[in-house]
């Protein structure tokens, strides 16, 4: 009873301080707003309008139509003409264009014999008939751009000759669930909840104990009857509400502005988010008991934040990472939350069915609280 009373004292003190600290309070609202706008509009993995050049050695009507057909895919945008390979290579090296389409002199000849055109001649293994129509020289250093251009390798050429397209039957039928339009933002917004919470929650609490120490309040606090665990709980409870407020902002805007649906139940979402918020807050508290000043606590926050963005599955699929990186990712609360939140929001999964991630976050929180309480000594040794 006395313990609850003391926790409540810390909570209300934190809330008053937060209310007076306009800057921090502004950040609570502005960080999710601005980041959501930035990432929601900016991040797009469907690449379009890559700047490319062309070397047209044939200079015929056909080659010009070929260029227009390629342009019509919207994958690339022709910005420059070159007359020799050297100047094209130099332009790629300078980064002016990402690729160059080389159309050979005999493009017409190659085209009519090309099997994709399907002029009736039987497929042949003959060297001459199996030659490609033209060549792409690509700056392959960016794998996403290279992949986008590689995607053009088998583009249909039937339109070129005003033939009806005779679509071949694909080997596999693909049914896209949950995000049939393949909009990147559908995957980004739920992930952003994890990134923003990691950032703000760890940042706020990592400064919590350090700030009291820097301002000299801690020397007074440790001579009072408050216990470590009470202080720790009192420090994280106000931020749980802040975290929920941020989640509401992100998902609300995601829904209204970017049309990201919330397929799962709100209660499930609430449960998963609360678990993650508590895990992040206790991680911040542990940092706070290690750091000597606010600068150090900020550095440690960044140290956790970067892998949380890059390894958690927010940017790149978890499955694509080498096994060692997966181990590191497993240790981060953000990874487990990414799975949970995407599961609930996009796939309407029951978090009970994802008990591995749920229990991992819960255990992380409990252990973190214990470590922080043990590390926080009520003396000046």
């Amino acid at each position, binding site marked *: 009873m*006395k313990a609850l*009373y*003391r926790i*409540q*004292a810390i909570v*209300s*003190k934190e809330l*008053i*301080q937060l209310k*007076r*600290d306009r800057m921090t309070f502004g950040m609570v609202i502005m960080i999710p707003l601005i980041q959501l706008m930035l990432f929601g509009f900016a991040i797009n993995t469907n690449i379009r309008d890559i700047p490319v050049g062309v070397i047209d050695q044939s200079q015929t009507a056909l080659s010009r139509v070929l260029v227009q057909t390629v342009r019509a895919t919207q994958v690339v945008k022709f910005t420059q003409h070159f007359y020799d390979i050297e100047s094209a290579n130099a332009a790629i090296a300078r980064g002016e264009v990402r690729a160059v389409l080389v159309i050979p002199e005999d493009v017409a000849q190659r085209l009519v014999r090309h099997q994709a055109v399907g002029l009736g001649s039987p497929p042949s293994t003959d060297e001459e008939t199996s030659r490609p129509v033209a060549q792409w020289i690509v700056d392959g250093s960016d794998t996403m751009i290279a992949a986008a251009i590689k995607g053009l390798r088998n583009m249909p050429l039937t339109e070129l000759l005003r033939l009806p397209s005779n679509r071949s039957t694909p080997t596999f039928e693909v049914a896209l669930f949950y995000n049939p339009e393949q909009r990147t933002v559908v995957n980004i917004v739920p992930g952003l909840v994890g990134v923003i919470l990691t950032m703000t929650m760890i940042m706020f609490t990592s400064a919590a104990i350090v700030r009291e120490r820097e*301002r*000299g*309040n*801690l*020397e*007074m*606090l*440790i*001579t*009072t*009857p*408050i216990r470590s665990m009470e202080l720790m709980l009192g420090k994280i409870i106000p931020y749980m509400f802040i975290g929920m407020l941020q989640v509401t902002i992100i998902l609300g805007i995601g829904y209204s502005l970017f049309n990201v649906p919330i397929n799962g139940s709100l209660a499930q979402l609430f449960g998963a988010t609360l678990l993650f918020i508590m895990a992040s807050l206790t991680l911040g508290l542990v940092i706070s008991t290690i750091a000597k000043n606010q600068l150090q606590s900020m550095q440690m926050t960044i140290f956790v934040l970067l892998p949380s963005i890059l390894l958690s599955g927010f940017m790149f699929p978890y499955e694509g990472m080498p096994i060692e990186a997966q181990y590191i990712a497993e240790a981060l609360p953000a990874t487990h939350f990414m799975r949970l939140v995407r599961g609930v929001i996009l796939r309407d999964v029951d978090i009970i069915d994802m008990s591995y991630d749920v229990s991992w976050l819960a255990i992380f929180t409990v252990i973190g609280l214990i470590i922080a309480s043990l590390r926080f000594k*009520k*003396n*000046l*040794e």
Partner: protein
Amino acid sequence: MSDTVIRATQLCRHFGSLKAIQNLNFEVERGQIYGFLGPNGCGKTTAIRMLTGLLLPTSGEVEVLGLTLPRDAEKLRLKMGYMTQKFSLYDDLTVKENLQFIAKIYGLSRHEQRSRINELLSTYGLDQRAGQLAGSMSGGQKQRLGLAAATIHKPELLFLDEPTSAVDPENRRDFWEKLFDLSDQGTSIIVSTHYMDEAERCHKLAILETGIKRADGSPDELMRNMGAHVVEVESNNLRQLKQQLTALPEVITAAQLGSRLRVLVSDSCIDPIVFLAQHESLDKQQLHIVRPSLEDVFVTCTGKGRQ
């Protein structure tokens, strides 16, 4: 229960190779105001932190209010108040919010809280400023707030670490009035200071230098037993006279006070007036024996170990 509230025996504290406190022995009785007097860095704060359980002694024993430290440090928390050297309440909370926070931490009920806070606000002259942010107050006001917060739970024992270092003399006087009120009500108070006038108000004090207790007792005892005569010399050429006097082995120190020179002569010489008159061919009219001050005590018992 005995009337001794603090008993320290052979207390030592080392920080690496630095010996902050060496073999400190002392006792404090109930209701006493006990002072630690010493220059900066002499170990006053370290001593207080060990008595409050914030620092562990390297060796030696401390018993505070019948509790053995550091084992019973948590039990002591409810019975003691501690006012740190630097203002340690929250600058971004108002006076009243600060007191409410501390009251809740000490577990005062809602009713007790209200009456106790109102009582403290009027006792310490803060009722006009209850809604003001603590950070925007003057040094004297902050210090009164600090004392109010430290006594909110009516502790038996109060530790004050250089409470008046940021306060003007008038505020310091008022502050001490409050301390005597508390002492009168039975609160024992430990105070550290480097001001002589403040030390002189203590019932009993210990003079600390480089972690060693040089002397202790009531200010009167200390002055009586300091082992030196105090002579004031009125003369011209005081700077030169000072040089000559301090060269004599019987003279402990000499300090100029405006147009007079205050000379401490060891009590190994029976009649300091005659002694000084002979040595420096001064007229006896120019020499007066005066009452020793605490500063004289401080100077005679320290300085030997100073580098």
